[in-house]
């Protein structure tokens, strides 16, 4: 029997000093290799949920289990290591460290995670080259500063960074919202293809329903979140 990659059970999360809960979710289970489209209007707590999956925020009640590990039982340092080992993050924009080269940016997770370093058979730089090539970043750009890149190129470099060292989960938070429609399509295809190659689970967060079609599973956050909102 295959065990779930992400398992949220009956949890509530409230920001410090807030009057009411931000998230109150009964259950969310994601199986290995699934590509999940998580959508919801802005302010529905998408980013907070990702913070919880990444172990940055800890829910007040309930359990968050990632890859069989209950995150709220880990200490801060261990949660940081767990995140670095098993989750690749990809954000809306400004994903890259401006003073590092393209290649150095891609290699960053390997600097912080022994696990992801060990997942690479052979040379780290060669693996980075392979990913960059697969994500259509020309070799001329690899040693250039990231500021020389277009926004679309930057997002693909960030994707390579999220994928390097084969983390089991890729969390992408509105990664296409700074791209035009045509590039969104191309980027999404590349990302999904590479996730499939690495057999990684993809959590794709967006408020843009047009992208949902490519996903085999769609989750609407405001449907599973029991917190009633005044709008």
């Amino acid at each position, binding site marked *: 029997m295959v065990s779930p990659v992400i398992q949220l059970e009956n949890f509530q999360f409230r920001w410090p000093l807030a009057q009411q809960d931000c998230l109150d979710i009964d259950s969310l289970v994601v199986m290995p290799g699934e590509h999940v489209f998580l959508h919801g209007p802005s302010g529905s707590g998408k980013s907070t949920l990702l913070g919880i999956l990444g172990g*940055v925020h800890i829910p007040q009640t309930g359990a968050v289990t990632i890859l069989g590990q209950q995150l709220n039982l880990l200490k801060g*340092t261990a949660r940081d290591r767990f995140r670095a080992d098993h989750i690749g993050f990809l954000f809306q924009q400004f994903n*890259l*460290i401006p003073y590092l080269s393209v290649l150095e940016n891609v290699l960053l997770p390997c600097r912080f995670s022994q696990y992801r370093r060990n997942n690479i058979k052979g040379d780290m730089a060669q693996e980075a080259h392979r990913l960059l090539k697969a994500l259509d970043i020309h070799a001329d750009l690899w040693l250039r500063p990231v500021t020389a890149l277009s926004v679309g190129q930057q997002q693909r470099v960030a994707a390579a960074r999220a994928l390097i060292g084969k983390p089991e989960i890729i969390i992408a938070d509105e990664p296409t919202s700074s791209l035009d429609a045509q590039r969104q399509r191309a980027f999404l295809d590349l990302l999904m293809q590479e996730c499939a190659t690495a057999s990684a689970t993809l959590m794709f967060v967006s408020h843009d329903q047009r992208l949902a079609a490519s996903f085999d599973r769609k989750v609407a956050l405001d449907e599973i979140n029991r917190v009633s909102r005044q709008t």
Partner: protein
Amino acid sequence: MSMKYLLVLAARSAWNRKLTLGLTVMAVALSVTLLLGVERLREQAHKGFSLSVSGTDLIVGARTSPVQLMLYAVFRVGEATNNISWSSYEKLAQQPLVAWSVPISLGDSHHGFPVLGTNQDYFKHYHYGDNLALRFAAGRPFSSTFDTVLGAEVAERLGYKLGSRITLSHGMGLGGLPEHKDKPFVVTGILKPTGTPVDRTVHVSLEAISAIHLDWAGGIQPPGFHIPQEYVRKFDLQPKEITAALIGLKSRAAVFRVQRAVNENKDEALLAVMPGVALEQLWQVVGVAEKSLLAVSVIVVVVSLSGLVAVIMAGLNERRRELAILRSVGAQPREILMLLTYEGVFVTLAGIVIGLALLSGVTIGAAPIMQEKFGVAMTMSLPSIGEFKLMGAVMLIGLLASLLPAYRAYRLSLADGLTPRV
């Protein structure tokens, strides 16, 4: 996560902001230059002071306090309350352990500069600094009664050359003093600068001191009583008493024995002091001024380091995104703390190194002027222990100061998580 990679990250990040951080480095560097410069001058001044006399084992005068004796015998400040008799001096000079002795006689002045009566041995045995002998910029030691040798500052300030004629005043001080104007002196020698009280001294022979006072009694020249200059040679110019004597011993090991013998002398109340010890006591008093100068430059360093804190703090908000990215790829808040601490340490370290380099440059540039004008030898050498201590202290304060923005970054990265709420 290796420490080494954090260092690389910190360096790359700092380089990315090189303009603002560079200005901060310069501020720290200048304050370090000032601090070390003051410390170096202070050490030089102390060294110069404690080497105002060197090679002299004992200074002997009438019984008084050691500091008092040093004040008038070496620095020509104040007046001797008592003199020592010529016979006591002669007995002392003939002791078997004594290698050489130089008698000195004070009491007169020239335009506020003290006049020192001595003999030619003074130019041979009076050493200063690192056992340096007096050297002549022009001329030679006095040979006849009304010859005089000027210290470098006297000659420069009063514009005297070889052959200038000067008259001496009776007593020490400025203005209103009776003049020995019937007996002028001729400048036969001018000394090179030494950075010691010698520069401010007018040297004449002991016989000259006797000669100008032949027709004086009780501090004035009695009216109608005058011995013209050309007749003084007919008188016995052997001094009856002197103010003090510099003593050199055949063996330094005998210094305590001779000192005790002098201090226990039955015929006349005498005092022998070791110049090094007494100068050190005196420095305790006059060194306070330099200490307060050092205190001011310490404040300048603290101000420049608070500038460093302000610059790093101000930059933090723009770097929240960067810190969040690092968190998302696995950096722990503790590592964010270290990253920011490294930055402050880099800036402080760079400031210290550049400050030291600047100081060395200034030292090299100023050395010839210092040597020529003040007789202070500024040598290029490794920083002294005192300077190393100061640099260590600056480093420590820099480290503590950089913990402030580092702690703020730590708090921010805890609060921001992966998505900075800017």
